[in-house]
């Protein structure tokens, strides 16, 4: 049996105000996370991702439930667990007036590093996360991307066996996000570090995570590989059609196997955005090229029925896509 990085049973957490009212954040979370996987926690804002990661990393304590981290009891062996885990948080914050190097030295000291070992580890992380140019720059003067890299470098100071990443690419531009993804993959693949990450970026989860737990209102709404999640939810396929001519939208919507019809771009709550495609008496004006996005079920006859409904139009382009994790997210978050 594979070693578990996390074994959680019935984890509950609520936050109480000073005057006694309580807000439940987690309700009976149970998870088994394997040592060798990159595990993703997904969910809408307020679903409990950060709280769950904070509990797993022993920063805060659960109210109920049992928790084992890397085989250690999270209640009894917290000190030992903290030596072999680390965390990089969303919106990383460090003492403002300390430079990149000083911050790493400070946190290295908190982890009991000393002497040449401390210096070597700090320099290694500066090199690994390409922070050499910024080593003497104060934290307050770093860009968001550099702050995130510093946070990751700090999280690697103690050579953790388990790394928690709380929304590691929040606020980063696409280029920096891609670099961060590479870093996470490298940390996991080359250094053999278990990674548990929270994110609300679906492509990121799909790209990096071996398995995903969807949290909704403090509960695990779904747990599986990204592919299985898409398969099991039977979300259907997305057909994008560019055409010129007339298409009867009402008839299209009424077709068997058609789940939704959207203008593209500019679909608003399942309705055609009139700025994009302007219907005339239930039909689209035939003078301009138009695009529609049709969500259909997996039945092979559905596509045939859809195409027949465009008999009065000229189809310019057609593209059929499998559902992505974003669709899964929207489905589960309902």
């Amino acid at each position, binding site marked *: 049996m594979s070693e578990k990085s996390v074994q959680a049973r019935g984890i509950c957490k609520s936050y109480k105000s000073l005057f006694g009212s309580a807000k439940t954040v987690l309700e009976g979370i149970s998870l088994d996370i394997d040592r060798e996987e990159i595990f993703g926690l997904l969910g809408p804002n307020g679903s409990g991702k950060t709280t769950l990661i904070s509990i797993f990393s022993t*920063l805060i*304590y659960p109210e109920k439930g049992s928790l084992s981290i890397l085989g250690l009891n999270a209640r009894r062996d917290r000190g030992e667990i903290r030596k072999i885990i680390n965390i990089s948080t969303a*919106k990383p914050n*460090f003492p403002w007036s300390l430079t990149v190097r000083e911050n790493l030295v*400070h946190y290295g000291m908190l982890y009991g590093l000393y002497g040449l070992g401390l210096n070597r580890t700090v320099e290694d992380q500066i090199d690994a996360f390409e922070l050499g140019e910024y080593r003497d720059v104060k*934290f307050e003067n770093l860009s968001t991307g550099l702050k995130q890299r510093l946070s990751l470098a700090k999280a690697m100071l103690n050579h953790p066996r388990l790394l928690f990443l709380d929304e590691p690419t929040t606020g980063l531009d696409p280029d920096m996000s891609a670099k961060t993804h590479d870093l996470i993959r490298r940390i996991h693949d080359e250094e053999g570090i278990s990674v548990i990450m929270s994110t609300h970026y679906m492509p990121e989860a799909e790209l990096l995570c071996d398995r995903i737990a969807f949290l909704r209102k403090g509960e695990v709404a779904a747990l599986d590989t990204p592919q299985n999640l898409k398969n099991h939810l039977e979300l259907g396929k997305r057909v994008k059609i560019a055409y010129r001519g007339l298409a009867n939208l009402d008839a299209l919507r009424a077709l068997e196997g058609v789940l939704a019809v959207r203008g593209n771009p500019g679909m608003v709550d399942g309705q055609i955005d009139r700025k994009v495609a302007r219907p005339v008496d239930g039909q689209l004006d035939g003078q301009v090229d138009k695009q529609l996005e049709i969500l259909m079920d997996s039945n092979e006859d559905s596509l045939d029925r859809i195409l027949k409904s465009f008999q009065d139009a000229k189809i310019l382009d057609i593209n059929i896509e499998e559902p992505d994790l974003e669709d899964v997210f929207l489905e589960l978050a309902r």
Partner: protein
Amino acid sequence: MNWQGELNKYLASTYKNWVISKRNVFTLFELFFWPLVNLLSIGLLTRFLMVDESMVSFLLVGSIALTILQVAQMDVAYVLLFDMWSKSIKNTFIAPIHSRHLIFGSLFFGIMRGSVVFAILASISFYLFDFRFQAGGLIPPLIFLAGVFSMAAIIGITVCISILTFGQKADVAAWSLSGLILLFSGIYYPVDVLPFFLQVLARAIPLTYFLEYYRSIFIPGPHHLAVGLSLAALYLLLGLILFDRAIRRARRTGILLWLSE
């Protein structure tokens, strides 16, 4: 872990406070400006009132004690205040450390800064007001300083507990507590002049006894140094226990998360 790694867990807070302090222009005000203003005000007041030499010593001991207390207690409180202000408290408490690492590491820096301030103030007092801090030998000022620093640690721990219990609002405690000590522990007057119930309170503050002890070198009189030492040790121990409990409570309530957001 070996002793060097353990030592560095303590020195981490010393290092952080040192780096932040050396970049903060207000450090100069904390170390030089306000202490000098305070000392010169009191010293010149003694000249104006034409008090005798023993009374000059009485007042200058109070002035020096208050200044060192404020400097050192802030250094202990800074260990969490800096983290709270920069919203990085989460990173500190995810590390494998105990409350003692934070308190004693920052207290060590407070002792260094307090010692520098003491050296400056004692020198200036000697040249301007003929106050000889080593009149009874070197042991009395060292015991006196140890008492002031232990009191600073107790106040600093109280502020840290307040931060973890009440969050951002605890800033106020950091700036106010030494003021209360000024009122109740006889910094500028003997505690006998206080109303009876405040005298009881004064007798519960270790600094009262350390002031009486050091002043007894200049104005011979009774003192109860052993009581002061015992109270300081008791409060320090109690403070560390309560700080540990405050950390556990902050982990239970989630305030550690809120302080980082």
